């Protein structure tokens, strides 16, 4: 586990050396920051803002606009259910429901033990396997609500 200071140092190096403290690189910087910290709490946003010489409200405006950025820490395993059209017409809403039921949390939330987060995403490009569920980098295709429990049980 790295210390906070190390993480901020890495971010600073990126902002200074690769982005030249340029405000127009904000989205790239936020991507990197999220990679480093796992999420984008206000302290990190304020830090980025000061580095770029802009008001933190501008950073927050961008962070809250894009769904890829998160201000909440994510669980160890992120369960993403594809809600693209192809998956939807093959019942991905029922998959989501089952996942929510099993974990007892709603879409977008993280379990109290920090193990699982449920998210939805739009079309992973595996429409042939619809409906599709991903856990971190692993993809499960052609699943039914009945399969969900055994898939989650593997983690």
């Amino acid at each position, binding site marked *: 586990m790295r210390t906070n200071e190390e993480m901020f140092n890495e971010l600073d190096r990126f902002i200074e050396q690769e982005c030249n403290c340029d*405000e*127009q*690189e*904000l*989205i*790239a910087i*936020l*991507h990197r920051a999220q990679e480093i910290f796992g999420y984008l709490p206000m302290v990190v946003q304020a830090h980025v803002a000061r580095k770029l010489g802009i008001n933190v409200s501008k950073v927050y*405006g*961008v962070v809250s*606009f*894009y*769904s*890829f*950025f998160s201000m909440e820490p994510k669980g160890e395993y992120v369960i993403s259910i594809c*809600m*693209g*059209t*192809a998956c*939807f*017409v*093959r019942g991905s809403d*029922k998959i989501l*429901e089952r996942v929510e*039921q099993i974990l007892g949390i709603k879409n977008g939330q993280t379990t109290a033990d920090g193990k699982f987060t449920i998210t939805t*995403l*739009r*079309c*992973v*490009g*595996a*429409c*042939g*396997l*619809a409906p*599709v569920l991903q856990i971190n980098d692993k*993809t499960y*295709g052609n699943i*039914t*609500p*009945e399969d969900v429990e055994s898939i989650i049980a593997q983690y």
Partner: protein
Amino acid sequence: MCTKITSKEQLLTMYDNVKELIEKRTTLQEKPEKYHISVCGGTGCMSSKSEEIVKSLKHWAKEYGVEDKVEVAITGCFGFCERGPIVKIFPDHTFYTKVTVEETERIIRRHVCSHDVINHLLYKNNNGERVFTQENIDFYKKQNRIALRNCGLINPEEIAESIAAKGYQALATALFDMTPDQVIEVVTASGLRGRGGAGFPTGLKWKFAKNAKSKKKYVICNADEGDPGAFMDRSILEGDPHSVLESMAICGYAIGADEGYIYIRAEYPLAIKRLRIAIKQATEMGLLGDNIMGTGFSFNIKIKYGAGAFVCGEETALIHSIEGKRGEPTLKPPFPAEKGLYGKPTNVNNVETWANIPYILLNGASNFASIGTEKSTGTKVFALAGKINNGGLVEVPMGITLREIIYDIGGGIPNGKKFKAVQTGGPSGGCLSEKDLDTPVDYDSLVAKGSMMGSGGMIVLDEDDCMVNIAKFYLEFTVEESCGKCTPCRIGNMRMLEILNRITEGKGEMHDLFELENLATTIQSSALCALGQSAPNPVLSTLKEFRDEYVAHIVDKKCPAGSCRSLLNYEIVTDLCLGCGLCARNCPTNAIYRTDKTGANARLNAYAINPDKCVKCGACVSKCPAKPKAIKK
């Protein structure tokens, strides 16, 4: 490989040297000395372990001592995702579908060692015949792969393979043999229209950008594929990244730009990785970067990540996002061609549009224009999905009918269900019904029918799909993705969605339909950007084609497709119930109980559902072994 190419001749010499890489694959030959096995590296097949398949094939080749007789490589997407993972064997062109890691041993032992085809891995056509080669599969017969020409053919991580497939020859032709105006003329004459949605003529767009007076101009590749049912841009970038880089440089030469950006979804890690490799390799070879092929023309490409906002597919929003801001569209005019990225003239095209450019320059405008229809030339890639037998990426000539795509290529509707509608154009498009199946697929015909081409999502729906629910699905998407800047889109679409929610919950009233139409009209004519303006299309088109279904929800409080849960009631038909109890054991809420009556089986009592406990999940129906099923909704 790292010597810089400094003239057209050098590029052509190199092409001569490496072209056999491709030729030995494309020239059909039975029982060859050496095999080349291509494994699909598209995201769909990757999810089905195609990387492990490659490893395993290599492993078995070693085990059987045939390493020198076989090459195994990962390629771009074959498009036939429904049957993935796809393994294609050159030069005999055997096309294996649904290959598993377990089958790899057999492929090496039988196919490579004994030239023996493994029958059960072959695809079965609609008539039940097993087919050996890709060309003879119904799915591919009517396709004409131009944008996808190299996907599945080349290894996208090797620039030599791209060069072997005539990569960068179009750029060389433009730089050495043509003036910028001539390049634009050819693109204009080809009739190519933007493949990202609205179908604006590409040549004209380039001309506007060229005519804008500025020392600095930009070229942007829009790879922010946002339609929730389309993934052709991703497949092109993953399967043939060089064709996009080459085209951007051609455009840069034509309009006078020396810098390009690829704006790509951060959710596409594989495409990003392959683009990075491609840019590095092309730059090292002098095909990109400073002083391209010794001509003095420079063109540098940077990658910018999107961060999850559908609206960034709109070009002004995309530009703001590249500038590090919220991706809110601004009013056009001024168009990006006058005032785009950092206030400079900018030309934005989407990935699929770019992928067509080298073909046009190498084969001539008239060749391209001869494909398709008069006003919609060339081909279009569709992501065929939904209730369809052969889903996947298909590239068809414009003007082909929906019926041909759905039945001839897609193999029709699975499980003997009835076709109901096809949705094109994603959240901006509409639903077409049975009577529109013979509509030619081109920009203008689809618009005339109340849908649109869009980026190429094509979702087939069957009798189990509720059209109100489908409209609601798309509207939910638009509401979630609306940038929130203008009133009609921000509030109007939400209000429409609320009405649809009411209708699907059985709380709708007839005047809601009037209200939907009223709101839709205002949103269409007064929203700020094209996304807002087109957001009501799915609702309007379903209201037009399937009004009865709306009325059934409102008046009869019934969902004819049996899909809207609030309007459903599950019931066990006592006479059909076998009394097995599978339904009760699988009911998550214990809503199913045993009755004191016997049903189909005289020895076991039948079951019944307590409607107060039932959450209408449908688990019981899927488990019921009776034929016909004893549970009705």
